[in-house]
């Protein structure tokens, strides 16, 4: 059977440095996979290769068996991959509704249908009351939800979340965790999430992939992965586990 999403021997270099070095992984339909690793491990670069911001030097990115490596970002979105950005990138001069509407238009040309779809998503993310506010005037937590709303409005089958929780406080984090779980349950979206808040990673991920210095160093269920010596080493230093 063709796997839902698969990366084979992906490599991306900047100058001499391999930011993503021979990374392979498979993600099944409906899974939530957490992607963790120290700063500079190559997680965001991996996202950027998957979503077409960069073309890989070598390797394949297969969505339902079709190689999408090297396609332009707008093509990849049309194939069903949505993403959020680590540093939020709202369309600041547009209202919250228009931010989502512009994405919903990618699926229908009808203003009515697009507006309905957008409002639906805004309700889902509890942003409906803010629909007429300019995106520039939202709080960070709201902007993070708006990022997610906008990505969802393109009706992705596969969603890449880049540090959706960074900069949120405890209550906001709990709320966002719930939202991510609902995105899968209600909308059937497969999710790959870069996340630093470990509490959240443990809670939402079916599986965790760990990267360090561009390479994949571990993979497995969250409780197991964080006990692996190589992971502890990457995070805490040389011989923490054995100390």
């Amino acid at each position, binding site marked *: 059977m063709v796997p839902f999403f698969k990366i084979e021997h992906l490599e991306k270099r900047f100058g001499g440095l391999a930011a993503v070095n021979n990374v392979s992984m498979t993600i099944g339909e409906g899974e939530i996979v957490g992607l963790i690793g120290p700063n500079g491990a190559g997680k965001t670069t991996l996202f950027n290769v998957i979503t077409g911001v960069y073309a890989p030097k070598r390797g394949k990115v297969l969505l339902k068996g079709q190689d999408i490596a090297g396609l*332009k970002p707008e093509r990849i979105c049309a194939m069903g991959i949505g*993403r959020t950005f680590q540093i939020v990138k709202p369309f600041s001069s547009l209202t919250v509704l228009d931010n989502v509407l512009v994405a919903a238009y990618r699926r229908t040309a009808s203003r009515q249908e697009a507006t309905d779809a957008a409002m639906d998503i805004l309700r889902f993310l509890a942003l409906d009351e803010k629909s007429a506010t300019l995106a520039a005037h939202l709080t960070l937590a709201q902007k993070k939800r708006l990022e997610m709303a906008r990505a969802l409005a393109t009706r992705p089958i596969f969603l890449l979340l880049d540090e959706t929780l960074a900069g949120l406080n405890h209550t906001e984090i709990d709320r966002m965790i719930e939202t991510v779980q609902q995105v899968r349950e209600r909308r059937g979206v497969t999710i790959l999430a870069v996340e630093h808040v470990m509490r959240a990673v443990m809670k939402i991920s079916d599986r965790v992939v760990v990267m360090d210095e561009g390479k994949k160093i571990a993979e497995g269920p969250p409780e197991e992965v964080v006990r692996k010596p190589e992971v502890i080493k990457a995070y805490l230093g040389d011989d923490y586990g054995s100390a």
Partner: protein
Amino acid sequence: MTAGSVLPAACAVAAAALFPLVVRDPYFVHAAIMVLLFAYLATSWNILGGLAGQHSFGHSAFFGIGAYVSTILFIYYHVPPLVGMAVGGVVASVISIGIGYPCFKLKGPYFALATLAFTEIFRIVVTSTEQIGGIDLKGAAGILIPLQPGKSLLNFQFSGKTSYYYLILVMLLAILFVYRWMERSRWGLYLAAIRDNEDAARSIGISATRYKMIALAVSAFFGATAGTFYAQLLLYIEPALFSSAFSIEILLIAVVGGAGTLLGPFLGALILTPISELTRTYLGGGYAGVQLIIYGAVLVAVMMFAPQGLIVPLKRGWRLLAERRP
């Protein structure tokens, strides 16, 4: 349009329509025509510069193309200027695609410099071309447009300035309508998304290049029609229409008024065009540069104190005034 803005808008249009009936001095009518023409031209720039956020420094290229294409068609093929206007618009749109292709690969100041270089190339080529395929371009000397016997809209020949005034007023209302329509349409949203954050726009499936091209082609089309109008108004065209200085003037009008707003370019024309028109006449000869000094001073002041354009503080003032009234 919201209910609150219908009344002021209607009043403004009515006032504009009455203007030549009240003010009969042809000199003032001419100045008013220039204001409307520059408002029209700056609004056409605003379709690319404001809606899509691509601050082109080469808009005069399209103005010049419109002026030259319709004039050549008129003189050599007897095509009525009204038809020539449409043809010039289409030609400018097609050429704009060729310009957009390399320029849209560049950002910010580099985009500005590249578009500036393009319009300079046009100016230089037209200046140094006397003849092409049996058509006299007359190089730097420019072309005088002969009068036709029949007065008609099709031929752009009227008995007085007033008709030109109403024509450009209608054209301005039309382009403002187009601008508003584009802004509110699906395309307008795409363009706004690209303007605000191109990476994010592409991540939700919007092809940035394609929509910027569309905005450019529309912007070029209207810019060229302004060129035809100008040619028929003054009955004389010259390579300076392509100049980078003229491009910058167009951009300035839009930016001083407020790029990316419906009425910003109009406001800009209302302020800046009379400065150049009036001082040119009254100061004349020895003080030829004064209007440009005032022009420059306005520009410097706006950039230093209201870089979003004068419409922003104006709107804020209006709102305060409205709130103070019970």
